[in-house]
């Protein structure tokens, strides 16, 4: 079965995740339990970017696979 992958839509959600996590760290007041966990989330977000968002940078929005 041919699947269609909505790369552009996924990349947008990843961008929102990153923005939300970054904003959470900005308002954390320096709580380590927040900041350090956000750092881990952002590391995982970067892996999502490698898997999905970086493709948008080369003009891929949707893909069949």
């Amino acid at each position: 079965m041919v699947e269609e992958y909505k790369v552009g839509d996924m990349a947008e959600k990843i961008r929102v995740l990153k923005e939300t996590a970054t904003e959470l760290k900005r308002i954390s007041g320096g709580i380590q339990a927040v900041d350090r966990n956000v750092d881990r989330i952002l590391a995982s977000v970067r892996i999502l970017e490698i898997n999905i968002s970086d493709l948008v940078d080369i003009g891929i929005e949707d893909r069949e696979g």
Partner: protein
Amino acid sequence: MEKYWNPVLETLPREQLQQLQLKKFKKILKWAYENSLFYRSLYKDAGLEPGDIKTFDDIRRVPKIEKSMLRTAQGKAPFPYGDILCVPLAAVTEYRQTSGTTGQPVYQADTWQDWESGVEAYCYALYAQGYRDSDRLFVPFGYNIFIAFWTYHYAGEKLGCEVIPGGVLNTEARILKMQELRATAMGATPTYVLGMAETARKMGIEPPKDLFIRKITVAGEPGGSVPATRKRMEDAWGAKVYDQAGSTEIGHWGWECQYQCGLHVNEAFYLVEIEDVDTGEPITEAGRRGKMVVTTFDRMAQPCVRFDSKDVMEWSPIDKCECGRTFRLLRGGVMGRADDITKVKGVLLAPASIEEVVRGIPELSDEYEVLVTKKGDLDDIALKVELVPGQEGNVDAVKNKLVDQLRIKTGLGYNLEFHDYSTLPRYDVKAKRFKDLRHKE
């Protein structure tokens, strides 16, 4: 069940894949230039600015690095990584080091994000090899300062497998634990995979019948892509054996999928170039051996940009694997290191070709040793082997086979020594079976 870890990247048309690689190369080059004094000096001395790289062919203008340069760099501040480091020391969360077999160990710094990226690259491999969340992995290694199977462990976890750390247990205890818990997969060096099977048999345990391991991922030595060694491992365990390639400085850049047509290069994470060992000329066609120059795209703390790994390999003539992945294939995996390929009696010798001969003769045990020495002005090469129990009466026949096949595969004559079973050295992790003593005498 989905057959790809990431169907979008793994089946990307090659033109787009190369576009992605160029973009990622430019990004890591710029990052290294802007954040590491080591890289900036290297590139400035070569008259190169990151903006000079516009096409794929331009990449070859970027100076290569090699291990000795990393050792020199790490003698500088900040301790212990030196001026190759691109992030503040406080951002480093992971330390590993090379084994130091070719000199002073190289220290490897990673941020958590770098570590995640390495684990992710390994997930591509394990998923392609059929690992799923129903697997119970056994990891029989020492969990120490070497990268070894750390990433196998974490990639297994990320896939949802149940991971059993077989850390400080001895080999017998590991086998018993594997049996008790019915582990279905494991990762180890080819040397240890064969050694464990031998130990199991001595304990009265036949791995194919008495254990539950059905998938083995091997790394650290060429054996996984040496057909005779692979067959020995698969027969000894009743399991499929998959090769995996990587190193401390680079990460896990290549792996076999279930179709085993060769080693896929994970081109979404790494740029692998092959070049002529002597001239440095790029090799893009299949079937011509050269050494690997590799770039890791997403390792930021201690970037690896055009690293001359000295691993010997060749592109496969197979354009597209049956698995449907577009990642390019290597034929025969990593065949050895350019440093190990040496002239003996005027003939170029790759130690892996001796392994292929010895492991292809069923009357011989898994172990062997090769000693190259100088007798006067002449090279001498001795091969020590063991017959398996019950084959002691077949020395002459085995000797004839060895002489013939060694002559065909390596073009050399050897002084053959037959030793009693289990008297040659056994190794727990990586073996050192090829000893060139000519320069030490």
